């Protein structure tokens, strides 16, 4: 494999997987929380929150990337705060690429989880309550397992989006080999230099392979989860 791929190309593949996995896992708890709020909450500004979550889906990715740069750059208000208090730097780092990927995939994740929470039968939650389960236990033992299929779908969508994310990433963290150069950026770089067609094709094939594997994995997982939660 390493004969076939140059070390730089191999790095781009590994970096893409790292960025996509980190983005998916890190955004999952927030995604579940926001989805629960949107599905069940009744509060002022709910439609505003809904719009905000969906914003990255509607805006051009470059705009999202630019806003992230303004907000999370070293001199941006949030970026400065993170650096001063926690020593975290996001701009031009792989962590920044993960943030960009997470933000871009967030609406897809929240939407899938929200729909599955809305589909959970509230009567089952009432039944759990009469059996002595506190609201937190009801959520952990009944609501969450019942919307697991939606959570799996949300994670796959978020992961797929992260693997393909280009515009926001390149705007926010640029295209630094070994640090922020993910698969799409690497393919783009190959297409910009003479004689890069072979490299672009190799990475394209890898991209396709990863997508197909992810698709099969999600199918298998959905079937497994679905079998466990055969609806009454």
């Amino acid at each position, binding site marked *: 494999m390493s004969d076939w791929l140059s070390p730089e190309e191999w790095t781009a593949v590994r970096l893409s997987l790292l960025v996509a996995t980190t983005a998916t896992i890190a955004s999952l708890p927030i995604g579940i929380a926001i989805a629960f709020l949107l599905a069940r909450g009744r509060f002022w500004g709910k439609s505003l929150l809904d719009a905000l979550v969906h914003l990255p889906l509607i805006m051009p990715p470059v705009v999202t990337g630019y806003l992230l740069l303004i907000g999370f750059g070293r001199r941006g208000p949030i970026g400065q705060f993170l650096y001063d208090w926690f020593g975290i730097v996001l701009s031009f780092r792989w962590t920044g690429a993960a943030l960009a990927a997470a933000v871009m995939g967030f609406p897809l994740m929240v939407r899938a989880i929200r729909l599955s929470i809305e589909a959970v039968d509230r009567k089952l939650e*009432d039944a759990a309550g*009469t*059996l*002595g389960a506190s609201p937190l236990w009801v959520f952990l033992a009944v609501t969450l397992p019942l919307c697991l299929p939606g959570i799996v779908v949300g994670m796959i969508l978020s992961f797929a989006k992260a693997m393909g994310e280009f515009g926001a990433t390149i705007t926010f963290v640029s295209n630094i080999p070994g640090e922020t150069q993910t698969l799409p950026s690497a393919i783009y770089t190959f297409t910009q230099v003479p004689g890069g067609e072979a490299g672009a094709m190799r990475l394209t094939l890898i991209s396709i392979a990863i997508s197909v594997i992810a698709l099969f994995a999600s199918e298998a997982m959905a079937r497994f989860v679905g079998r466990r939660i055969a609806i*009454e």
Partner: protein
Amino acid sequence: MTPALDIAVEHRLGNFLLDARFTADGGLTALFGRSGSGKTSLVNVIGGLIRPTRGRVVVAGETLVNTDRGIFVPKHRRRIGYVFQEARLFPHLTVRQNLLFGRWFARHHGHDGTEIANVLELLGIGHLLERRPAGLSGGEKQRVAIGRALLARPRLLLMDEPLASLDEARKAEILPYIERLRDEMGLPIVYVSHSATEVARLATNLVILDQGAVKASGPTAEVMSRLDVAMLPGAPEASAVLDAEVTALDPVHHLATLSTQAGRLFVSRPGLRAGARLRVRILASDVLLSLKPLEGISALNVLHGTIVEIGMERGTDGAAIDLRIDCNGVMLVARLTTKSVAQLGLKPGSPIYAVIKSVSVDAP
């Protein structure tokens, strides 16, 4: 003695006002009423699924709701079991996990009669443990739901029309389990129903609800034989409910002799065992009255008694009248035409012979 349940609540739902108060002791208290009479809202108030506008709910001496004092115990701290109309089993868990769900939260409440083996045996669900709810029949689901509620060690069990979604065969399958629950567990039960047959068979005490208000409450036999209750819209037909024991079986004529406080009754019903205790219900429309002892009639069952009350004319044409007859301390009810009552000159105090055309025996 503190009652098992003491409730007085007011709750407004749109145009509907629930304004009900009653107390219940041990045994099975049935809430009877038409659909929309507020039965389910009332049990939801007891179970903590509805927060009433005003009022109090006291279970076994502990105040669970008191709006004046700002007390509202959330449902998960009430220790009140709830068996819903649809079983509401958790589809992602096995039968065993469903049964143990409430058990786990009740693990600090000490030991009592609701040991797992007992409950499995009582409900006959031991062979289902590894199955999933989706693979169970309606009757099995409902039995698992009852077991799940019992294993959470409740001090009161609510059952909201647990048989309504089942066919007759499945109902017949579950009724004996509910009787055993009532007689063997010593757990007070509040049972919602709109079936007079179910109530006559199961209830120790009966509460009649109509339009959100309690119209009558008391021991089942007394309430079911009350003539004023029978006049209420949607109320069950006036009837006698008698506790009986099978004293003899006549295999030649397939007749069982039942001994009741009112006298001997003969019923032809296969499957009865000598010595079995059961309840019989005699509808007012199945009783004829005679001033003299009758001879040469086909009906086997004749009881002697005294008229104690003559009801109001009923029906749109006022053609029928219900009468209440005291047979050795037990109330029998008869429905006659207005004309017969006048011709026989019946009045309270008249001695009378009641001819019973049919006895419905609600037993396995």
